[in-house]
Every structure is written in C-alpha cells, then in structure tokens.
C-alpha cells in the first residue's frame, strides 16, 4: 500500500495513500469513558467525514481537556492532523498517543502506521519503513 517514494523529490510532497480508517470504539470496560467524551468523539468523526476538519479538531481538543491521558483521543487527533496535511503534527501527536498507550499493542501499532503515513507524506521513505517495522513489532 505504501507508494514507492521517489528518493529525489525534495520539493514535492507526495499525498499519502488512503488514510487508515478509525477503529470502532472499544468496549467501555477497556478505559474510563464518559458520555461527554463519547459525544465529542462522535461529533469529531462526523465533522471530519464532512470535511469540517477545524471543528473536528476543536471537539477533540475539548475531549482531551477532559481526559488528557486518553491515548485513543490523541490517536484520533493524529489521524485528523494527517487529513489536515500537518504531517509533523500528525507524527508528534501519534507519538504522544504512544506515550499513554501502555500495553495496548494494537493501539501502538496503529500509531506507528500513522507515523509511517506522515513520514511518507514528507518524503521520508526510510523513516516510513522504520515506522512500519515498529508497527509489526507491536505484537
């Protein structure tokens, strides 16, 4: 799925492949969830799907003010930054999600895949490969 990145293309940012789709919300027992967060997350996803990316980001930021240590929220924000074309922020935000991910290997792997997309979009093919390797290792 990773398009072959042209090594010499320093000035052209290659649009990344299809964005990974958000995972379905996990069971509530897996984390401390409350209705406000769920509402904000649903709203953010709807806004993002409709192209209202800045609104979606604002909802996610509100959700993060309620649960700043929730790795799923950070991951959702990273996904949004990819859609917004802010690849540096997509990578940092996915890394932030990883810092709270604990032993959730599936979540970590997804973060590394997001990082791979972001790196590929910035022309860093080697970095993207390294990130995909890291995603594979999360098992």
């Amino acid at each position, binding site marked *: 799925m990773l398009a072959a990145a042209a090594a010499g293309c320093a000035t052209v940012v290659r649009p990344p492949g299809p964005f990974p789709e958000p995972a379905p919300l996990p069971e509530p027992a897996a984390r401390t969830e409350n209705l406000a967060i769920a509402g904000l997350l649903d709203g953010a996803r709807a806004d993002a799907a409709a192209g209202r990316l*800045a609104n979606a*980001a604002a909802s996610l*930021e509100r959700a993060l003010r309620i649960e*700043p240590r929730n790795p799923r929220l950070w991951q959702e924000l990273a996904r949004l930054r990819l859609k917004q074309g802010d690849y540096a922020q997509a990578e*940092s935000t996915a890394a*932030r999600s990883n*810092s709270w991910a604990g*032993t959730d290997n599936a979540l970590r792997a997804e973060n590394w895949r997001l990082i791979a997309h972001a790196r590929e979009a910035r022309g860093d093919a080697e970095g993207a490969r390294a990130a995909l390797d890291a995603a594979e290792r999360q098992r």
Partner: protein
Amino acid sequence: MYQTIASGGFRTPLRAIREVTTQDGRPLRRYALAVEQAFPPEPMYLITTAMQGVVREGTAQSLKNWLPPEAAVAGKTGTTTEQRDAWFAGFTGDHLGIVWIGYDDNRAARLSGAGAALPVWGEMMAALAPEPLALPKPDGIENVLIDPSSGLRADFACSDALELPFAQGSAPAERAPCASALGVAVEGVKQQAKSWMQRLFGR
C-alpha cells in the same frame, strides 16, 4: 522548560487564547493544540523521578504539610546567590506550577526556595485537589539495586540497598563491596524477569 519535562518530553506551546469568535460564536481564528516530541521519554523519566526524590526526602519535604505522599509530586526548590530569589517548581499528575519570589530591583529578598516559594506553591496546589503523578515507565529504563554508600551494584546482602532507575545499560557494572558476584547476578535475572512480566501482563 518544566512543561516539557512534566509531559514526558512533549513540548506544547502554552496558549492563553484558544479561539477568537464572533459574538454569535462563529470562529474567526483558532490556535490549535500543537505537540513536539523534544526529548525521548527516558531522560524525562529520570529527571522526574529525581524530582520526586526532592519532595520525598530532599529540600522540598515540607510539602507534606499541603499534599500527601500519595500525590508523588515532583519538585525543585531554588535559592539564587545571596538569596536574591526564591523559587519552587513542581508538578502533579495534572498541574504544573512555578513560584518566584523576589524584589523587582534584584536586591536580596533573603528568602529560600523551600522557606518562601514552596509554601505558596503548596497552598495553591492543595486547593486544586491535584491528581497523583503516575509516570509510565519507558521501555529504555531499567531498575537496578544500588548500594548508596559506594554507588555500585548491590544485592540482598547489602543493608541499605535502593532500587534506582537507569537508562538501560548505564547502571554501574561494578559490584559494591557488600555484594557477592552470585547475588548481583541473581538481582539481574530477577529484574529481567520482572520487566518481562510487566511487558506481558501490564505496566
């Protein structure tokens, strides 16, 4: 600077304004949340645990008058030369605060960080009902049993041995006088088994 440490290495520029809207709430300009991983988590973890030591048994011990030990506050007192300024910087699980006390003409305030700035911080923070500071232990950190008097590797035979965090591979290799070669090897295996169990069953 402290914000970056408190967040485990992720610098997040402070925003006093998140959004500017029209009077009916339509956003005109947004200032987005931005993060930058300025440092890997391991050195941040080491600094933070050292700062927790400052509060637990160092110059910031009097903080217990305002916050319980379970809060696991990380702090740093500061007193500048000739007692010009008194500082206290500290963070809990959800708040970071820095207190500076001094004169605006740089003359000596004759106050210490612990004596003057810390109480201000303690009173302010206690009123916020802070969350305890619970740091996730990064992958690149290992806990090693150390003999405090020699600073070298200890085993169960050493009476005051402390478990201290180190960046993997940077702990002293040499054995303390109180320890035996077998004892140190056993400690090493125990630590590896513990890390393996933590990875398998949760941090």
